[in-house]
């Protein structure tokens, strides 16, 4: 009984101590912030974090906090208003949409600085154990679209009849079509649809005509991936896709260039429209599947939150985003030099985004 009473006493004291402790924590209103708060795209995340870390380590300012929320989620937070409880910068794997820009304006975020930071390639890759694949964007469209032009001729569309790559294009191997790619929530998938699928669809005269006449319908055609097992949602984790490719030499994966860059001993990128996805080819714009990456800055926060100007300067310095900068080592494809200069100039002057089409 004595032991038990001691336990009770201890427990009461403990609880009391905890409650007192909480009361001390009590009013947690963050009315000021001394570190930059960044939200947005998971594609830009690996690059922004590298800059943030170096920026923090160099001393002078705290390391910015970077949340990986996705491009859309990032803009939602970014455009919610001006003030310390709202983020200062939003990373994006596409340009800001007109609707998002409007939301921003409505909530008082009127001055936004757009910073284009470089390119990201989207690669189709397979295991090193299998031969390297050579695709045209037309092949990609035929293999992955839900509906394709009737192979027997005619104007109509039929549900995708192709089972193997050889049926799509006789020069490809006789292997079942099995593509692992990102889910619909992913920005990589949106970019893949616009870059590869749309390009492939435009290779058909009938669809080209449709694109001019009924853009919405055309978008639905290149934007719908097959659901009969030829295309598999492999989740947001690109490392997982790489592992699956190694285990299954017949599968093809779709993901960002940096994952190919890190795993060149296990997987190889497919040639698309005659070009291999290499750093140089993407930088030159020869490799067709690449998209620009951005981040957006709230001008109203510059000077209020310490370090924003310096962070921008670090990001747009040659040692970061330049041709041999540390971001290129992480897989970011730099902008051409002239464009880098122009963007850096804009950033320096904090030129505000006027209008979004």
């Amino acid at each position, binding site marked *: 009984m004595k*032991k*038990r*009473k001691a*336990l*009770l006493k201890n*427990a009461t004291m403990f*609880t009391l101590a*905890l*409650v007192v*402790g*909480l009361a001390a*924590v009590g009013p*947690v*209103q*963050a009315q000021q*912030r001394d*570190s930059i*708060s960044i939200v947005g795209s*998971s594609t830009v*995340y*690996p690059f922004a*974090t*590298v800059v*943030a*870390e170096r920026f*923090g*380590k*160099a*001393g002078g300012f*705290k*390391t910015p*906090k*970077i*949340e*990986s*929320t996705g491009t859309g989620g990032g803009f939602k937070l970014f455009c919610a208003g001006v003030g310390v*409880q709202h983020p200062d910068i939003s990373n994006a794997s596409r340009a800001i949409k007109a609707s998002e820009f409007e939301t921003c304006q409505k909530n008082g975020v009127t001055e936004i600085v757009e910073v284009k930071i470089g390119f990201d390639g989207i690669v189709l890759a397979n295991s*090193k154990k299998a031969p390297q694949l050579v695709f045209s964007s037309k092949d990609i469209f035929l293999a992955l679209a839900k509906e394709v032009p009737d192979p027997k001729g005619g104007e109509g569309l039929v549900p995708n009849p192709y089972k193997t790559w050889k049926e799509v294009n006789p020069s490809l191997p006789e292997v079942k079509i099995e593509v692992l790619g990102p889910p619909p929530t992913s920005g990589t998938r949106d970019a893949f649809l616009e870059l590869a699928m749309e390009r492939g669809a435009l290779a058909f005269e009938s669809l080209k005509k449709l694109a001019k006449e009924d853009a919405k319908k055309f978008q639905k055609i290149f934007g719908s991936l097959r659901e009969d097992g030829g295309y598999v949602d492999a989740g*947001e*984790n*690109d*490392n997982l896709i790489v592992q699956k490719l190694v285990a299954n030499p017949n599968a093809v994966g779709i993901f*960002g260039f*940096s*994952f190919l*860059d*890190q*795993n*060149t*001993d296990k997987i190889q990128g497919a040639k698309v429209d005659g070009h291999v996805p290499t750093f140089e080819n993407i930088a030159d714009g020869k490799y067709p599947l690449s998209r620009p990456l951005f981040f957006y800055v709230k001008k109203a926060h510059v000077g209020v939150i310490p370090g924003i100007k310096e962070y921008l300067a670090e990001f747009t310095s040659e040692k970061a985003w330049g041709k041999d900068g*540390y971001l290129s080592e*992480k*897989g970011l494809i730099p902008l051409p030099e002239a464009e880098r200069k122009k963007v850096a100039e804009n950033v320096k002057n904090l030129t505000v985004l006027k209008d979004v089409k």
Partner: protein
Amino acid sequence: MNSGRETAYSGEPQERRTIAVVRASLPRRYRSERRFRFFGLLAIVLSIGFLALMFASIIAQGYTAFRQTEIRLPIFFDPEVLHADALARADYGALIRHGLDRLFPDVRGRQERRELFALISSAAVYELRDFVMRDPELIGQTLEVWLKAGADIDMAVKGHFRRELPEDERRVTDRQFAWLDRLAAEGRLEKRFNRTFFTAGDSREPEQAGIWGAVCGSFFTLAVTLILSFPIGVAAAIYLEEFARRSRFTDLIEVNINNLAAVPSIVFGLLGLAVFLNFFHMPRSAPVVGGLVLTLMTLPTIIIAARSALKSVPPSIREAALGVGASRVQTVLHHVLPLALPGMLTGTIIGMARALGESAPLLMVGMVAFIVEIPKGFTDPATVLPVQIYLWADSPERAFVERTSAAILVLLAFLLVMNGAAIWLRKKYERRW
């Protein structure tokens, strides 16, 4: 059974006695018992097998992360480079380059030199800086210093890049392999205990990344959860169990509590976003908000465990206390609660263990973030262990694969300790009637 009984009565009653019926059915019953045991055993073997498989794969992938390749360089703390008044901003990279040049004087050419400098982690300059800042006396001396190797070099030394592959298919070149061989032969290359992994915050350079930031974040978050959910949960359970009269209203509350215990955790995250962030304007990414969200999530579990602990205290205890004149509050606080406490604590710890492994609800309140600085309080931006694992699993760098597994091992160790504590508490204080 039926047919047996029928023959026993209708046939020849003298010979077909009950014992005969029992004997006749014995083999069948033995068989069915053996079958049942076999399936039971099979179920256990199967689950242990899967568990062992999981542990084996995580440990096999993760144990290498506890050791990190380091390279010993002769560093001359050059007074030309290190000016006493600007130590923080000196060019420490120059010291490292100089050290490498000393070991490999014949390496020329831009590309070749770049490869040489890539042997050492890009973050080693900060290590060196801290080293000098701590002891400025070093300036002017030459010392042998162990510096971290770059992540790709580390992977190569650990055997993740096979040398047989063509040069352009691996991230370590032939030249670099040759230098590594020479360094190893000279005793300048060693795998040493990876202290950084346990003391640093997150980093995008795998060799600089550590889990201490996430451990601290988890600590602060769970502290808030415990502080709030234990007293509130126990108080609610005591009231419901000992004081409240059974009515439709308390039945409704009970149904709701049981329901809440089964609600997916992300829902609590959404609630936290709406209430704590948007309404109360609490800071994003702060452990205090994460703790509040996890409190909401663990409260039902704790209330249910606490109520069943109270139920298991026999009514005779209460009657005896009331009989000698104790008030109801006295009865509960002096007699019932102490007996129920071990059960309550067990339930609480199991609830806490679940909260420790949770990441989904924290996404909504901004704790899925890259945070380098170690959180020092309840309102500093922080992340937690499971989130750290998720972020590393998503990183392209190869060296993060083993670090992900190592972080999982650390998380599992914490869970093991917590569940062990729950069992120990139960064993130590439990009383059976």
